[in-house]
């Protein structure tokens, strides 16, 4: 068989699987878009006035009413809203009167940077601490790291952020307190955001590793004289990783949501802070745009996690069950 055909033959089921996951996403994205669309109509009050903003004149309100077609039936409005959405038109901010896509474009890079940095910290610390805790079960490290992890789950991130700011920015003057800039601006917000996820990843890694370390093939690996390091890194970690990936995917979504709080604490100019400010100003086009964007990001991350499973677990079939 020519190598090209072999490749298609091998990849075809996986491509079909990815395609199916994509198709599965459609109803969810559709539902999300309906919810986001309805926000404007569920809020008590005149939608045209809400879109125009509090400082708009009566004429402005009427112009917006006719341009958005707010006098037409809801399904018609949804279709036209969706139509302009697909053309990349999310309307204009009621506050700055700039296109919502422009506002989002300014803030997306900051949020992506922050969530990726937080995720990197969370995975590094979480997987590392969880693995060591499992290997040295009932040791001092095991107990202390699990107590810290429990605290990490229960600590409000905004408080942790303020405390880190107090110690490392105000008292020790190691990092800047607020805003966005170089790498040093990223450290405190990323640690704040990643701490909760690190705690949960550490707990899941530990329990998953403990389960795997008790299996017969690990004993066999030890018995045939492999070093402890090889057994843990080559044999155990790979098999313990499936639940960890699940939780990493889930935590990514929580990081996107948590970014709202962290960005507010550190006055970090991301999508989350944009959303909170928009709610404060009742700037509905921006609220809709940022909610849609964050939900869509979450859906994409979930898709990526589903695809990653296939690489990590050959037992997961991408055909029919």
């Amino acid at each position, binding site marked *: 068989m020519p190598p090209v055909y072999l490749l298609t033959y091998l990849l075809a089921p996986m491509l079909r699987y990815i395609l199916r996951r994509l198709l599965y996403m459609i109803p969810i994205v559709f539902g999300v878009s309906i919810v986001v669309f309805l926000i404007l109509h569920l809020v008590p009050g005149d939608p045209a006035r809400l879109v125009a903003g509090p400082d708009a004149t009566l004429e402005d309100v009427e112009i917006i009413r006719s341009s958005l077609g707010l006098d037409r039936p809801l399904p018609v409005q949804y279709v036209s809203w969706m139509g302009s959405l697909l053309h990349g038109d999310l309307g204009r901010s009621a506050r700055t009167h700039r296109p919502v896509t422009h506002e989002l474009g300014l803030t997306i890079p900051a949020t992506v940077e922050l969530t990726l940095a937080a995720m990197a910290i969370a995975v590094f610390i979480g997987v590392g601490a969880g693995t060591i805790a499992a290997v040295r079960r009932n040791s001092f490290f095991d107990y202390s790291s699990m107590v810290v992890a429990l605290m990490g789950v229960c600590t409000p991130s905004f408080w942790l952020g303020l405390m880190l700011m107090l110690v490392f920015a105000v008292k020790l003057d190691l990092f800047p307190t607020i805003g966005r800039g170089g790498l040093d601006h990223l450290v405190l917000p990323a640690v704040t955001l990643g701490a909760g996820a690190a705690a949960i990843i550490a707990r899941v890694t530990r329990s998953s590793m403990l389960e795997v370390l008790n299996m017969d093939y690990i004993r066999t690996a030890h018995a045939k004289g492999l070093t402890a390091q090889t057994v843990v890194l080559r044999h155990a970690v790979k098999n313990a990783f499936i639940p960890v990936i699940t939780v990493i995917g*889930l935590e990514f979504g929580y990081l996107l949501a948590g970014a709202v709080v962290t960005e507010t604490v550190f006055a970090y100019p991301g999508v989350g802070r944009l959303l909170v400010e928009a709610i404060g100003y009742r700037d509905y086009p921006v609220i809709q745009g940022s909610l849609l964007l964050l939900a869509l990001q979450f859906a994409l991350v979930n898709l990526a996690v589903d695809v990653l499973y296939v690489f990590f677990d050959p037992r997961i079939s991408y055909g029919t069950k």
Partner: protein
Amino acid sequence: MRGKGPGNKAVPGVLPLAPGYFRKPRSLWSDAWRRLLRNPVAMTGGVIAILLVAVALGARYVAPYDPVAQDLANSLASPSPTHLAGTDVHGRDIFSRIIYGTAISLRIGFLGMLLGCLIGVTLGLASGYYGGWLDMVIMRLLDVQLAFPGLLLAICIIAVIGPGLENVIVAVGIFSVPMFARVTRGQVLSLKQQDYVLAARMMGAQDGRIMIRHLLPNALAPILVIATLRIATAILTAASLSFLGLGAQPPTPEWGAMLSDGRQYLTIAPHVATTPGLAILVTVLSFNLLGDGLRDALDPRLRV
């Protein structure tokens, strides 16, 4: 009670019953209660939670000062014997505000959890019991809800119904619906295959009776565990919303809002932001410990 029964007398040709055969029957709940009492970590959580409830109920007797009384001459005072946790920028006693805040946070936690539990368990029961298109519709609706991860769903609800303390309860409640619905549905799916459900149906029990009298009591253990853990999540979520300015409005002594206030004075008076955070941490920790303990006591295999 050993030796009381006839089985322990040696009767020729009759096998003796196992010792303890006539012991008082024990239910799942009394067993679980015994296990819970023997779990020191869970009991610590439980005792702290009970103390917090007591403080919340007796706030006006415990708090040394009026939580909203201003004393501008005493603005941002550090902790001292007169003001145990210091004062905020308006000279209000932070310790008293934290005590009153306990009542606010616990009320949001309980009511929010209860709202989510009522809606979620009802949806889960109906979805799991009837199956078919109803199940499809409910589950897809919940999928859409879950597409807004974590706090984002609560923020989405607040964007619609507007900021405010009472609205936070609604937001936190709806936020908890998918969790309760999914767990209840999962339980019902396996329970409805049991023979006693078939027996009840053969005796002519209506759907409603089967769901409430037969399925619900047997699905109660995981629901109770989720409910306890959910109080913790609800309190944390509500505090986050208030911190963002979407929940309690001034001068309400809500912990998240107090922290948000203290943020401005972090450099000159760090105690204003420190203490409310500790209060949230202790409260959330206590309900989480209790919930984890309940799970271990009721069924260690539960993965909730």
